[in-house]
């Protein structure tokens, strides 16, 4: 599995430099924690990496391939999948369909004739059992509790055979049992050699899960390295607490 290299990445919104000359490498088989104050550009980075926001300048290098532009539907071709800070499910379809819909053929005409239904159902069952939602499979997504909705979003990414998983504050608002379930999922992905990105404000979780930390501030890289050393750095503490 290959690394994702980010080189001098820029993304502006009008006058706001949401991502401002960011460079770092995301390594397979590691959980990279991205932390930073509110508005420091973490979600914007996720949007750019998943093709949901256009790259202003800079390159991404995946598997040796240089990418200067990425459409959102191309993200999975590069093995990238993601969750959203504000949950975005397909609300008025069932929990099961929320998973099945990402398992089927991508082509328009192929999706009309797709004959692999059984196989997909088996896979969907595995995933829903893993996140504890198999019993709720026939409910509409919008009928789930907040935590269940966040887990369903995680399930949707697990359905993709991705190389790079971008999780934007997946733990926020989860009950303790769900935190445990999700931690195990992340550790599992790491063991499978995936690139795992964890955006998180809870330092305890970051300390226990992340192998490597990237600190963002004002769209720039403030610090990176092993959690213990980075989190004790003076400038990092100030960026978080000083404002």
């Amino acid at each position: 599995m290959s690394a994702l290299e980010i080189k001098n990445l820029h993304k502006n919104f009008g006058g706001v430099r949401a991502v401002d000359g960011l460079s770092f490498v995301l390594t397979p088989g590691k959980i990279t924690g991205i932390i930073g104050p509110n508005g420091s550009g973490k979600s914007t980075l996720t949007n750019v990496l998943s093709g949901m926001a256009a790259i202003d300048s800079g390159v991404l290098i995946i598997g040796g391939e240089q990418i200067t532009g990425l459409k959102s539907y191309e993200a999975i071709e590069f093995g990238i999948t993601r969750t959203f800070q504000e949950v975005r499910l397909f609300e008025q379809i069932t929990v099961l369909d929320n998973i099945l819909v990402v398992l089927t053929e991508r082509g328009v005409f192929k999706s009309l004739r797709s004959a692999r239904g059984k196989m997909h159902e088996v896979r969907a069952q595995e995933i829903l059992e893993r996140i504890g939602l198999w019993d709720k499979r026939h409910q509409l997504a919008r009928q789930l509790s907040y935590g269940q909705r966040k887990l369903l979003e995680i399930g949707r990414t697990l359905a993709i055979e991705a190389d790079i998983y971008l999780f934007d504050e997946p733990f926020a608002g989860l009950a303790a049992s769900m935190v445990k379930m999700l931690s195990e999922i992340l550790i599992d992905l790491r063991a499978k050699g995936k690139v795992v990105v964890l955006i998180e404000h809870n330092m305890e979780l970051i300390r226990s899960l992340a192998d490597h930390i990237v600190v963002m501030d004002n769209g720039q890289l403030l610090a990176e390295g092993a959690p213990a050393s980075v989190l004790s750095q003076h400038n990092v503490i100030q960026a978080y607490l000083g404002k």
Partner: protein
Amino acid sequence: MSYLINLASIFAIYAILAISMNSITGYTGLVTLAHAAFYGIGAYTTALLLIHGGVNFFVAMLAGIFLAGVVALLIGSVMSKFRGDYYILGSIGFLYIINSIMKNWDSVTGGPLGVAGITRPALFGVSFAENLPFLLLCLTLLILVYWLAKWIVSTPFGRVLKAIREDEEAIAVFGYRTKHFKLLIFMIGCGMAALAGGLFAGYIRYIDPSTFTIVDSVFMLACIIVGGLANVRGAILGTAILVMIIEFSRLIGLPADVAAQLREVIYGVLLIVMMFWRPQGLIGEYKL
């Protein structure tokens, strides 16, 4: 009896329209009011090829479906740039353009006077000239369209349509080129509307631009909103209810022009009431 046969025929034609609009609006979430234009394209193509080209009725109808598909491809490509309210407004714009072509391209469409002298078809020695066989033809095609719509939404393709309706950006990031999905369902839906148009031309034998206006599109929308968005049977149920309401307004003996205006008021009131009381319609599976 002949009254009931006529009523059932018009019901079947409207039900095809409602089912076709439901595939686009109910399942995919694209609220279009251009539908009457495609209904008209089907009717005019069928009538004109039949009368001026001497083409067989069914071949002419197929040509109408094909032409509607091509026009839907063009219009759909432009509309794919729009979202939400802009989409609706864009669709109204295209409806007016096409309706004004019907009204003003006199040498081809007969202008405001329309096209008269449409004859009903025969197939394999069976004549559909009488009302009863023509009704059977309409019902057969309704069943075909019903089955096709049911099948489409049961495939993975149909599931993607619903996901597009719920969150287009989110499904796109999972690798679907949503534009292609929206275009294909738009073309299929508009093709079905053109089929209804061909049948309508054969049923009524005389067409003019006044049948293919925004009022007609709103009627179709009212059918699916009353019966139920994203439910094929709901579209049929809604059509049945609206057709009965129209007939009722006729039966209580109001003058024709009053009845016509009253009908438009009824569509409007129904839409408003449904939005307050039950936005997913009677048996629908999606709220706008």
